[in-house]
C-alpha cells in the first residue's frame, strides 16, 4: 500500500475494506479459539481418553466376553440373557436400592437438623463442625473396620451396651437385615459431617431479611421453614439428592470390608456384583452387562430427580 499525505488518503489506508474487515475478524476469532483450545487440551485429552471413550467402550463390552485376561469375543446378547435370569443381580439391585433410600433419608434428615442447629446456635459451633468432620477423613475401609469392631459379637460396643441393658447379644453381621442396616449406619456415620456442612452452607445462603420479614408477618418456625427456607434451598437440595443418589448407588468399599456381600448375598450391592464377576470369578460377560445396567439405573434416577424437583416450579406459579 502506497502512503499518501492527504487526510483522505490516510483515512483510506487506516480503514479496512468490507472484505478485509470480515477476513480479519475471522482470523482473530480463529486465533482466539486456538488459544482457548490450547488451554483446554491438557484436560480434554485425558477426559476423552479415560472418561468418554471407556464409557462408550463399556457399552460395547457388554456384548462381549473375555478381554481381561485374553482378548474380547463378541457374543451378541448372551450376556444380557444371562443376567436377565440371574437372581443375584436382581437381589443386588434390590439391596442397593433399599440401602440408598435408607441411607439418604437418614443422613439428609440428620444433617438438616444438625445444620439448622449449627446455624442458630453459632457459639462454639466450630468444635462440633470439626468433630463431625473426622469420620470423613477415614477411608471407607477404616469405617468398615471400625464398624466390624463395634458390631463384634464378643467385645463390640453395641453388644456390650445391649448386655449392660439386659438384652442378649446379637450376631449383627450374621443376620441379613441387620447386616444391611449396619452398612447403612456406617455410611451415614461417615457422611454426616459432609452433608451437615453442605446444608449449613446452603442455609447460610438464605438471607436473614426474608426470614425476619416472615417472622414479623407472624409466620411460626415450621411455616417459615416450609415457605421460605425450603423453596430457596431447592436448587441445592436437588444437587444434593442427585449427588447422593449417584454416590450411594455405588457403595462398595464398606461392603468389601464389613460383609463381603454376605451373609448369603444379603448385602451384595451392584458394584460388588460387578467387581466379583469381573475380577474374582472371571465371568466377565455378566460383569460388563451389569456395569451397563448400573449406568442406566443412575441415568434414569438422575433424570427422575431433575424432573421431580424441577417440575414443582411450574405447578406453583
Amino acid at each position, binding site marked *: 500500500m502506497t502512503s499518501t499525505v492527504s487526510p483522505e488518503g490516510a483515512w483510506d489506508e487506516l480503514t479496512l475494506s468490507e472484505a478485509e474487515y470480515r477476513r480479519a475478524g475471522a482470523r482473530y476469532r480463529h486465533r482466539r479459539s486456538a488459544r482457548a483450545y490450547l488451554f*483446554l487440551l491438557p484436560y480434554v485429552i485425558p477426559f476423552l481418553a479415560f472418561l468418554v471413550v471407556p464409557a462408550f467402550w463399556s457399552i460395547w463390552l457388554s456384548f462381549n466376553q473375555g478381554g481381561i485376561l485374553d482378548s474380547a469375543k463378541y457374543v451378541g446378547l448372551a450376556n444380557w440373557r444371562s443376567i436377565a435370569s440371574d437372581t443375584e443381580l436382581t437381589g443386588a439391585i434390590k439391596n442397593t436400592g433399599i440401602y440408598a433410600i435408607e441411607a439418604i433419608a437418614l443422613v439428609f434428615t440428620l444433617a438438616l437438623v444438625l445444620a439448622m442447629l449449627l446455624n442458630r446456635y453459632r457459639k462454639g459451633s466450630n468444635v462440633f463442625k470439626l468433630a463431625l468432620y473426622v469420620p470423613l477423613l477415614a477411608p471407607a475401609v477404616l469405617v468398615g473396620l471400625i464398624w466390624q469392631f463395634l458390631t463384634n459379637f464378643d467385645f463390640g460396643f453395641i453388644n456390650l451396651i445391649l448386655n449392660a441393658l439386659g438384652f442378649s447379644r446379637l450376631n449383627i453381621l450374621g443376620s441379613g437385615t441387620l447386616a444391611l442396616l449396619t452398612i447403612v449406619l456406617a455410611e451415614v456415620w461417615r457422611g454426616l459431617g459432609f452433608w451437615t456442612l453442605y446444608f449449613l452452607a446452603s442455609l447460610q445462603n438464605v438471607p436473614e431479611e426474608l426470614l425476619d420479614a416472615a417472622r414479623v408477618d407472624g409466620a411460626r418456625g415450621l411455616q417459615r421453614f416450609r415457605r421460605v427456607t425450603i423453596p430457596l434451598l431447592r436448587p441445592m437440595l436437588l444437587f444434593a439428592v442427585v449427588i447422593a443418589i449417584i454416590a450411594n448407588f455405588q457403595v462398595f468399599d464398606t461392603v468389601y470390608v464389613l460383609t463381603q456381600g454376605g451373609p448369603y448375598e444379603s448385602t451384595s450391592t451392584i458394584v460388588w456384583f460387578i467387581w466379583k464377576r469381573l475380577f474374582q470369578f472371571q465371568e466377565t460377560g455378566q460383569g460388563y452387562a451389569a456395569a451397563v445396567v448400573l449406568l442406566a439405573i443412575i441415568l434414569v434416577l438422575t433424570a427422575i430427580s431433575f424432573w421431580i424437583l424441577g417440575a414443582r416450579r411450574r405447578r406453583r406459579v
Partner: protein
Amino acid sequence: MAAQAGVEEPGELSQFSAEYTSAARRSRSIGLGKGVAAYAALTIFALIAVVPFLYLLSPSFRQSYELFSYPPKWIPHSLYLGNFRTILHETSYLRWALNTVVFATSVTAITLVIDTLAGYAFARLRFPGRGALFALVLATLMIPTAVLIAPLYIMISRLPGWTHSGINTFPGMIVPMVCSPLGVFMMRQFISTLPEALVEAARLDGASEWQIFRKIVLPLMKPAIVVLGIFTFMAQWVNFLWPLVITTTNDMKTLTVGVASLQGQFVTNWGVISAAAVMTMGPVIVIFLIFQRWFVQASMAGALKQ
C-alpha cells in the same frame, strides 16, 4: 394485650408491662431450654462421630487375646507396642503409605494444573462449542466408576504400542484419575466470579492470554486452588475400588487396599488391625487439625453457587 398500645392511663400501662415481663421471662426460659437441648443434641452427635476412633486406641495397645476378657478392661496397664511392630515389620505398611502419598499427590498436582487451565477457558475464553463441551463434562459426572474400571483395566494392561502392561505402575494408577469433571466445574464457577474488568483491561494493554492467566487470574484463584487441592487429595486418599483393580502386587497397593488385605492376614488379631487403623488415622487427624479451616471450606464450597 399488644393491641392496647397507645394507652393513656399509667395503671393500664403498668399492667401491660407486668404481663409483658412475665411473657418475656417465659419465652426466655423456653429459649434456654431449647438452647440446652440443641447443644445436648450437637454434643451427642459430635461424640458419636469421634468416639469410635477412640474406641480403637485401647485395643491397639494391647494383645488380642485380652480383648475377649469380660468385662472388658479399657485402660491397659502397660502399653503393648507389639501390634505396631508387627505391622511395620511383617507387612508392607510403609510401602503402602508411600504409594498412597505418591498417588494422591500426583493426581492432585496434575488435576490442579489442567483443571485451572480448562476452567479459565470455559469461563473467560470464547470458542465454538464451549457450551456443548462443558455440558458434556458435566454429564460425565453421572458415570459411575464401576462402569469405567473394566475398560480402563483393559486399556492400561494393553497399552497400544507398549510391550509392558501398565498395571501395577504409578503412571497407570495416576493418569486415569486426573480427569474428574468436578474440578473443572468448580474452577469455572470460581473464575466466572472474578471481575471481567481486570481481564479486559489486561487484554487492552496487549497482554497475551497466557500472561493474563499466569499473572492476574492465578493469584486470585489461590483459595479455590487450595480447596480443590484438598478435595482431590482426600478423594484419592480414600479411593479404594480403582487401586484395588489396578494393583495386584503387594508392593504397589495403596493404604486402603493394603489395610483391607490385613483382614485376611490377621483374621481375628484385632490388636494388629486396630493398630493399623490408628496408624492410618493418626497423621491424618493431626494434619486435619492443623489445616482445619481449609478442610471445612472444601466441604462448604460444594454448596456455594450451583
